[in-house]
């Protein structure tokens, strides 16, 4: 399963909810405002850290990170590009946590 989250964890509980329904072996792609969840040292970093600890693969879309000047990513989060986004969608069932 691929879960996509495009909302900031500071504004919306989409990421938190997504994590409740994520199983080991699933992956999460953070994109648009969702990439704020991938930043280390924030009040919401524990969400993604918890997912990684559960053996959930977490990706963040590099274009959205760069656009927001975000560089400090949580260790274990993989930065991907649009081609990687397409590969993830092609390889998985997708649920968008809009």
């Amino acid at each position, binding site marked *: *399963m691929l879960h996509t989250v495009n909302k900031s964890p500071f504004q919306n*509980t*989409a990421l938190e*909810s997504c994590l*409740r*329904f*994520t*199983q080991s072996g*699933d992956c999460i792609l953070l994109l648009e405002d969702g990439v704020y969840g991938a930043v280390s040292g924030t009040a919401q970093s524990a969400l993604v850290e918890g997912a990684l600890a559960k053996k959930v693969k977490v990706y963040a879309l590099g274009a959205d990170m760069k656009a927001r000047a975000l560089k400090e990513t949580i260790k274990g989060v993989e930065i991907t590009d649009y081609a990687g986004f397409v590969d993830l969608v092609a390889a998985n*069932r*997708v*649920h*968008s*946590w*809009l």
Partner: protein
Amino acid sequence: MSEESKKKIMFTVRKPPHGSIYVYEGLEVKLIMAAYDADISVVFMDDGVYALKAGQDTKELGIKGFEATYGVLVDYEIQKVFVDRQSMEARGLTEEDLLVIGEDEDTEEPIRPKMVDASEIASMMAEQHNILSF
């Protein structure tokens, strides 16, 4: 069409009713998809559980509302309707608060959405061909 060859499509509803058109539009899409003989399941979670609260009166809002339509989901062959237990509990809701989605053909007992845990929903998600979120 046999059960195995049917397309498994899940709808997730995470938005509250009436504040936006999502829940209403989602319901329309479910009924359309059901007409195509797909294996439909619907899961209500987060604020989406409020869409299932019985006794919604939208008259003063000047809109039709959809409680009556939810009341015939079973007649439209949409029987797999689930609600996330934790989202219900977080909002102080219990099974008795839920609206009726149809009645049992034999016993005429009312059928309500089924409360399930997140892990059960996650397993169902993994079995779908498609998942549409509203």
